[in-house]
């Protein structure tokens, strides 16, 4: 059914471009930059399920990414699991855990919920810092040997890259599929007015817990991939609240609730930062430039980039979801 809509093919085309670009001319540098872009797109579009659809601000969404990384790295380092088994296992474990967390904290709303998500992140970080099988605050170091089945670290990184792009693609398809489904309609209703939605027969507690759990699955997997690639994980990197905040900024920048906007926001945000970081002219005040740009966007495009595009070109709304 999805395949009949034009947006499905747009996502597929974007994926194809991501997959082919760095392969042309074996451009590893572009690959490194696209890996981070794919990471941001995955995190932002999964956050968007909670934020853009159901209207719940999750300040601690990074906890799924970090836990996924830990579960995956731990399975690989301590039990020598093959990568292709450890990565989905991380997704499933973290998703189940999110369902449990969700049943608890989703009784809260608004600012209380937002605070609770920070609490979950901080609590999990404190737990991991004292959990010796995961190396406590020193973290876990991986040997490059894990990439041996793929022919060494150099080839292994390509495998990680294509997996990252695939997960990014899944995130976009998933966001889109949910948006056009009955489940998505229910979430959007919750986002508009939760009480009214409940009266109209939307099973709000179930839907909220489900979306919380679903929005944990792919970030956990991408966390696994990312930390396998780094070959090193420690609590400070895995549960970094800055990344959580950045992802929220990205979603708002692109246009929360839209699939295209969030993906585009994430991509542009990462490319802009990468450019500022490596440009000789801007490298010393990259944060200033990024800050000013953010300010301009918030001031002049309050409904995000997609809001602006929709207003200027109303027809695009039928194609770009």
């Amino acid at each position, binding site marked *: 059914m999805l395949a009949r809509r034009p947006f499905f093919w747009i996502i597929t085309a974007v994926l194809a471009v991501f997959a082919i670009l760095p392969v042309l001319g074996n451009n590893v540098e572009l690959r*490194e930059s696209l890996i981070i872009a794919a990471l941001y797109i995955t995190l932002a579009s999964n956050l968007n399920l909670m934020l853009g659809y159901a209207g719940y601000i999750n300040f601690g969404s990074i906890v799924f990414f970090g836990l996924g990384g830990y579960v995956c790295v731990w399975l690989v380092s301590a039990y020598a699991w093959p990568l292709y088994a450890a990565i989905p296992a991380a997704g499933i474990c973290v998703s189940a855990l999110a369902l449990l967390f969700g049943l608890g904290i989703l009784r809260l709303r608004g600012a209380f919920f937002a605070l609770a998500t920070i609490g979950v992140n901080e609590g999990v970080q404190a737990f991991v810092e004292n959990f010796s099988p995961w190396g406590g605050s020193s973290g876990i170091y991986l040997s*490059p040997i894990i990439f041996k089945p793929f022919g060494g670290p150099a080839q292994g*990184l390509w495998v990680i890259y294509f997996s990252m792009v695939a997960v990014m693609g899944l995130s976009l398809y998933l966001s889109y599929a949910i948006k056009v489904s009955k489940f998505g309609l229910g979430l959007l209703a919750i986002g508009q007015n939760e009480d009214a939605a409940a009266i109209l027969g939307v099973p709000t507690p179930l839907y909220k817990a489900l979306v919380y759990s679903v929005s944990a699955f792919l970030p956990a997997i991408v966390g696994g991939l990312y930390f396998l690639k780094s070959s090193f994980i420690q609590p400070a*990197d895995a549960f970094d609240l800055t990344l959580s905040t950045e992802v929220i900024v990205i979603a708002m920048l692109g246009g929360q609730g839209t699939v295209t906007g969030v993906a585009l926001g994430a991509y542009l945000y990462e490319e802009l930062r990468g450019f500022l970081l490596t440009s000789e002219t801007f*490298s010393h005040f990259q944060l200033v430039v990024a800050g000013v740009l953010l300010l301009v966007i918030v001031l002049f495009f309050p409904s995000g980039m997609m809001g602006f595009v929709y207003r200027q070109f109303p027809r695009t709304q039928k194609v770009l979801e």
Partner: protein
Amino acid sequence: MKPFCALLAVATMIVTPAFAADTSSITIGFTASRTGPLNVDSTGQERGFEFWRDEVNSKGGIQVGDKRYQVKFASYDDQSVGGRVQQLYTRLVNQDKADFLFSPYSSGLTAAAAVISEQYGKIMIDSGGAEEKPFQLGSKHLFMVITSAGHYLSGAIAALKEKNPHAKIAMVYSDDPFSKTVLAAAKEQAKEAGLEVVMDESYAPSTTDFGPIVNKIISSNADAFMGGGHYSDGATLARQMYDQKANLKWISILVAPADDKFSELGAAALGVTVPSQWEPQVNYKPQFGPTTEEFAKAFEAKLHQKADYHVASGYTAGVVLQHAIEKAGSLDTEKVAKALDQTDVTTFFGHIKFAADPKHHGLQVAHEMVLAQWQKANGEVARQVVWPTSAKSADLIYPINAGH
């Protein structure tokens, strides 16, 4: 006139690269944490790199066979983030065509960069990460010039044992990877030396009130204190132990007392010891590179500030690489790696030699930390080197309870 000037400027710009191409150069790539939480320590290390480059270039460059090469840097801000480090090191190798790499600051970032250095087979000199783990993962191109975290307090334990073979030690330290590794190793070494550890406790890195902890130290009846973590917690601990009259005979604190700012504590600083990678008083007889005095004086003259051990270790990364390149007489990675494997040289920073066995390849095995103690001399509170005795600038004061 104006158009002429502009034309001249353009012409100069076009011509300059042609001249530059004539002089050969070596490119060394690295990232520094110019933003983010690691900024302060990373800046010291980067100053060391830059100072080394300027010194080498002013002397004509690195000698390779009968040619001299100027040293050039390619560097970026890693924002203290591991993922960024890998992206930037990949760029350094592929786009900036770095011939050799220096490490970023901290063990975590070094581990991230080491993956890239190994993947592309580029030598990386580590002067900013003291964790041993990245060296146990089979890397052939990573070389550490500083003493690893496991040996930070071994000098302190040896010195304490000599003064009091039955000392009871309270170990209280920050809950971060570096401090935990240092103290876990120190605990083992204390047990081997027959010293008793009567307290072993960590605190959150953000702790600002150590009152309850100091009370626990007092009631543990310890003679000696070892611990701390970074600047603010270490300095606060020292002050509160003094204020609450902890009556300790020995205090060793990590990192904080190695900063000159520590003298602001006045009497509370007196007698406190600190393990240090390098101190300006240490007088090794270098077989290669400048003497300590030459290094410290030139640095102060140029940057109007004193060199601390992060500066010195950054500079040493350059000296050791230069030594290996000149010895190999080649810029070929494998030849230089072989020369590094065989390196056994004393520099102003101390003796440098790398482990050659595959299990710890590249780990520093010869460099020793010194133990410095804050003492009062001629009315001034200053750091003196007290251990090892061969490098001392003053006698170790024990017990220190006169001031406490």
